[in-house]
């Protein structure tokens, strides 16, 4: 099967280690994909300003990607939740649907509602599968224990339809275990959304989350919002919450890349701000 890739705002403008590790992992696993063009922000971060603006942006993004006639890979929990939510709203509201299609028509676009999209974590679990991943592992993480952070919008809110169970999300846990590592689950919030209006609260949430993982070998994430808060803001978050310690924070696709034999450079570990060198030292690479 061939896919189109939409990395989303934060992965493609800031969290390059996520996009790059996804691209290199997909290539290694022989997954065919091409980038979607003429795309835009899903609008969810701007929903606080105006919900209609959000619906327009998500509907536009879906209508553009529908035109490829291929399933879409998303990297961001927010994009996935946004498209799931807007799809549901539009399917149940003719007035909203015709309003948004009138806007889209000015660009020659039309939202039909048949886009298939998957989060990269979903794709790895469902389309590539655990067997394939297990057989691709060249570097096992035996003896490691990771704190698994699927991120709020991957499994909440339940009523818009999420890929994983809202009380006990398993996908990211199982993916970490496939690599030979032990895993513990954390369902806390990284604080990105409140960081926008209240920096110290956002950093405190991120710092407290990092602190919870102090006895593990690192935090495994799968959303760029967690990457911004816990990796990019690592130093500040630890300072605000009074935590001193080394907790590597990295994307699952970076961990998977290392496991299947990619070099630290190929999964862009040099772009992480958290102490990921602690992890590579333990691995002896």
């Amino acid at each position: 099967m061939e896919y189109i890739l939409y990395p989303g705002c934060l992965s493609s403008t800031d969290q390059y280690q996520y996009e790059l590790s996804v691209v290199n992992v997909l290539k290694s696993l022989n997954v065919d994909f091409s980038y979607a063009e003429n795309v835009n922000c899903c609008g969810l971060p701007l929903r606080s300003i105006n919900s209609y603006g959000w619906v327009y942006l998500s509907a536009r993004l879906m209508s553009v990607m529908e035109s490829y006639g291929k399933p879409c890979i998303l990297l961001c929990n927010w994009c996935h939740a946004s498209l799931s939510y807007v799809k549901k709203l539009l399917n149940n509201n003719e007035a909203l649907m015709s309003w948004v299609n009138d806007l889209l028509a000015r660009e020659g676009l039309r939202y039909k509602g048949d886009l298939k999209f998957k989060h990269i974590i979903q794709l790895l679990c469902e389309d590539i599968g655990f067997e394939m991943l297990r057989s691709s592992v060249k570097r096992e993480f035996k003896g490691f224990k990771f704190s698994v952070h699927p991120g709020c919008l991957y499994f909440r809110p339940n009523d818009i339809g999420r890929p994983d169970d809202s009380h006990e999300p398993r996908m990211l846990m199982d993916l970490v275990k496939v690599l030979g590592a032990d895993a513990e689950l954390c369902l806390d919030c990284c604080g990105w959304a409140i960081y926008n209006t209240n920096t110290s609260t956002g950093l405190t949430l991120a710092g407290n989350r990092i602190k919870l993982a102090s006895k593990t070998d690192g935090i495994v994430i799968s959303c760029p919002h967690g990457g911004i808060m816990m990796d990019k803001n690592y130093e500040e978050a630890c300072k605000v919450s009074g935590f001193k310690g080394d907790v590597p924070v990295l994307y699952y696709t970076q961990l998977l890349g290392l496991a299947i034999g990619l070099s630290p450079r190929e999964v862009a570990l040099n772009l992480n701000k958290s102490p990921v060198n602690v992890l590579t030292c333990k691995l002896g690479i």
Partner: protein
Amino acid sequence: MWADVTVLSEKASVELVRRLNYFPSNVNVFACLQCGKCTSGCTVMVLMENFPHKVVDMVRLGLVPELLKSDVIWACTQCQKCRDACPQKVNPSEVFIVLRNISIIGGGSVPDTYTSMLSKVLEYGFIQDAIEIVGSDGLTYDRLKLGLSQLNGPKDMDTFQANCMDAFQRGA
């Protein structure tokens, strides 16, 4: 924060429902039992003294103008824990969004970060332009140096901008 109000007048109630329904989301403040499950699980309850069940109660008591004057409507991190926890499907996280929307439509100020993200969307299609990152090796990286393709924003930027302006001003 508890309100000294007993019954909404019929007129006020109609007006309240109209405002809450400005957008077709599934908010249902009138079903709230005040059980407090939303508040007990709230990510920012302790840090920001946010009590979602009280905000829901204030809304149905008709105290929306008071809420719009308060910072509490911005003290929510949209983690959606309350939405999943609510036994009555009241949807507190959505109540916060609707209140923010109503506030801004009514001329209330937009927090700086949101203004900045919207202006970037209008300019590039994304909430920020691609930035340079200094790696742990001390070198500076951008998409080109990492071998990543250029950003693929909207091709017809003029129409995209005009549509955004229309959509983001709907209700104002």
